[in-house]
């Protein structure tokens, strides 16, 4: 049971949230301009690092806001929490060991 601090509501149990996968994946501005391969990549391919991962969570049982979290996928240590739309605060490169 992860403990995640919603930027608006504070620390809550994981079960109050809904996971949203990788953060900062923008919907292409003009999908029609993409090749099938590029569109397929947008649809299906997401980073899957072993290490720090910028990901989205929705506080579905609370304020219902989406926000971003930088979490280490091995230790589950959370090093940043920031509202949707903000840039990732740290400059870590993702470790893939």
């Amino acid at each position, binding site marked *: 049971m992860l403990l995640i601090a919603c930027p*608006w*509501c*504070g620390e*809550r*149990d994981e*079960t*109050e949230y809904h996971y949203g996968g990788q953060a900062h994946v923008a919907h292409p501005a003009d999908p029609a301009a993409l090749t099938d391969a590029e569109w397929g990549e947008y649809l299906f391919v997401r980073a899957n690092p072993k290490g720090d991962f910028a990901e989205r969570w929705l506080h579905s*049982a*609370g*304020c*219902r*806001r989406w926000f971003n979290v930088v979490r280490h996928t091995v230790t589950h240590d959370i090093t940043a929490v920031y509202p949707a739309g903000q840039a990732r605060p740290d400059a870590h490169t993702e470790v893939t060991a």
Partner: protein
Amino acid sequence: MTADSLAADNRAVDRLAHLRRSPLGGLADRLAAGSAPGPRGVRLREIPYLAQLNLRLDPIGPAARRVAEALGTPLPDRTASVTVTGALRVLWLGPDEWLVVGPDGTAPGVEQTLRQVLGDEPGSLVDLSANRTTLELSGPSARAVLEHGCSLDLHPRAFGPGHCAQTTVSKVQVILDQTDAEPTYRLLVRASFARYLADWLLDAMSESTP
């Protein structure tokens, strides 16, 4: 304008009162029977038909100021959580979202006033009075009962009168509003989940009541 004058008109409700059924109307006796007095006691009852208006707007825009004036209190932020103005309680639900809770019958008046002060600023005001009902859990063991199914820190150092939170109790989402230090909590719950929550609370209360 005072908040109470906002909340005055409830004639329509009186006229239709005999047609209304609250989600837990049939359960009043069981709720009472599950309650117990005493130094380790806990009570549960439904407060049906509370007016509930969901308000969404930019918290720092001009409409927010106008709303504050009309209500006679600033809209609460997270740290303030709840502000009380006359008979109304304004609950912080999110960075741009509040729930104005008032006595039975006050929704139309409050809605009308708020709609006026909102003007054409983009926001939303939705009457949810019938969407949820309210369970009130009170008494010396009320906190312990909630703690059987709520993972929030409800210790007085962390949560007390004037605090509200959207969270889950057992498998149900609720808006939790602590109204006094006894403690007394209101649990605002969607109508279709009310029965489950009531059953669950009654079961959890049997841990506390002798």
